[in-house]
């Protein structure tokens, strides 16, 4: 029997997670510095929040919370869903420069399995970071999340994570084809946080920027998550944002997987799969 017939998505994902865990473990300092950076980031917003005291900005009234709670929640949420947007291109570029991409893709590995496995470790690590945020929020910063509607927040979370993973896969197509120079990653890195309401509600943006902001899935994701967590908003209140996120998923998920397959096929055709 051809051994490839036994290749399952689970076995592939497991193999990638093990590989990435062992690799990360071999860079111990990097792990520690990463955790410290997360805490330092939080401290910045904590002190900004203290500076402005408990006063609620009018733009935050919709969410019924203060600035620190808002930015804390958005950063924890965006930190996780942003993993999908950033990690695919980063991982792929690393494989290219190591020379392992061609070796991995010269096996019977299916594209869908490869996509599921490539960033599995990043998502696992992001889950750990999310846990750190949750513990810090509860025990250090004493955030009041008693009103939260967790099932609704979970649904927003799932739809958003899928959407950002699709954006990440689209972004990695540029890496496959052009190696360096990734316009989608540039937009995701530089404008998602600014225009998506991560660091402040989008209501503070001028009208023309608000229009741009409404084209980005992150805007709907952050708003819906904030409303579910701080105001306990349910499905009826969130249905507009959830529908938009669902539509983004419906289009982006199959399109990104298809375009990624095309990009790999093109690299096989031009003989540049092993290039960097």
């Amino acid at each position, binding site marked *: 029997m051809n051994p490839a017939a*036994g290749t399952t998505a689970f076995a592939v994902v497991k193999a990638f997670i093990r590989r990435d865990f062992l690799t990360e473990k071999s860079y111990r300092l990097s792990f520690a510095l990463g955790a410290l950076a997360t805490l330092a980031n939080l401290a910045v917003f904590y002190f900004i929040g203290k500076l402005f005291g408990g006063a609620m900005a009018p733009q935050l009234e919709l969410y019924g919370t203060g600035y620190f709670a808002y930015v804390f929640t958005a950063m924890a949420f965006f930190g996780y869903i942003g993993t999908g947007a950033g990690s695919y291109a980063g991982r792929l570029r690393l494989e290219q420069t190591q020379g392992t991409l061609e070796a991995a893709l010269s096996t019977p590995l299916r594209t869908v399995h490869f996509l599921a496995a490539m960033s599995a470790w990043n998502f696992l690590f992001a889950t750990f970071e999310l846990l750190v945020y949750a513990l810090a929020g509860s025990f250090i910063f004493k955030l009041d999340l008693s009103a939260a509607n967790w099932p609704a927040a979970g649904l927003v979370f799932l739809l958003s994570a899928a959407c950002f993973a699709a954006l990440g896969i689209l972004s990695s197509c540029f890496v496959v084809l052009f190696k360096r120079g990734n316009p989608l990653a540039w937009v995701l890195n530089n404008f998602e946080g600014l225009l998506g309401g991560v660091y402040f509600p989008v209501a503070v943006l001028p009208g023309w920027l608000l229009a741009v902001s409404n084209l980005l899935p992150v805007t709907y994701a952050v708003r819906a998550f904030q409303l579910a967590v701080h105001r306990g908003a349910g499905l009826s209140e969130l249905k507009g944002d959830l529908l938009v996120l669902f539509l983004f998923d419906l289009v982006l998920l199959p399109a990104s997987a298809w375009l990624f397959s095309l990009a790999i096929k093109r690299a096989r055709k031009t003989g540049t799969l092993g290039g960097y």
Partner: protein
Amino acid sequence: MKFEARGLTKIFPAPAFSGGSPLRALEGLDLEARPGVVGLEGPNGSGKTTLFKTLAGIIEPDAGTILAGGEAAGPGRLRELAAYCPSNTRSFYFRLSAAENLRFFGALAGLSTAVALERAKQLAEKLELSSADLDRRFDRLSEGNMQKVSLIRSFSRRPPLLLLDEPFRGLDADSQQGLLELIKEAGRDSAVLVSSHAPELLRAAAYKVLKLEAGRLAGEAL
């Protein structure tokens, strides 16, 4: 299983705006390989590596067909049927041990952990790679031992088509002998294509040696 390549053509386009010309790597090449060992020799740039990568489904030909067992086989099917051992070792995770690398690539090829590690152990013995070296981080291995790990990765798949590009590179005399035995053993069930710039090793490994020139087969080498 019998493999046939008919009219294989591969032209690598010049990079955009480079002013260069396309590289014609394969020019309508025909080849047949049955279980057994066939050697390939030819000067640098004659198309050996391109031929191997095309037969392995890593790159797609611009024209021509490849048949496996009489049926047309596209790149996806070829990646199931063929294992390619590249001529350089820059295709491993340097921070992982040799064994961990073999376990990982084994999983991608559909081998269970137990099978991948068992085969790695058996093949390492034949190639005189110690178990301590199997457990050593890849970037701490000598060039020759890296090459052995690369060979183990390909042999352990036990594919119907085994493509060995410069497999003797960096090996000491005893390991070369071990590899010759492994190639002979694999050739009983699989079609094995071997390229080398060492004519005596190629002739020791293969029952016939073909000559490749400018992307075409130029008959049997003398």
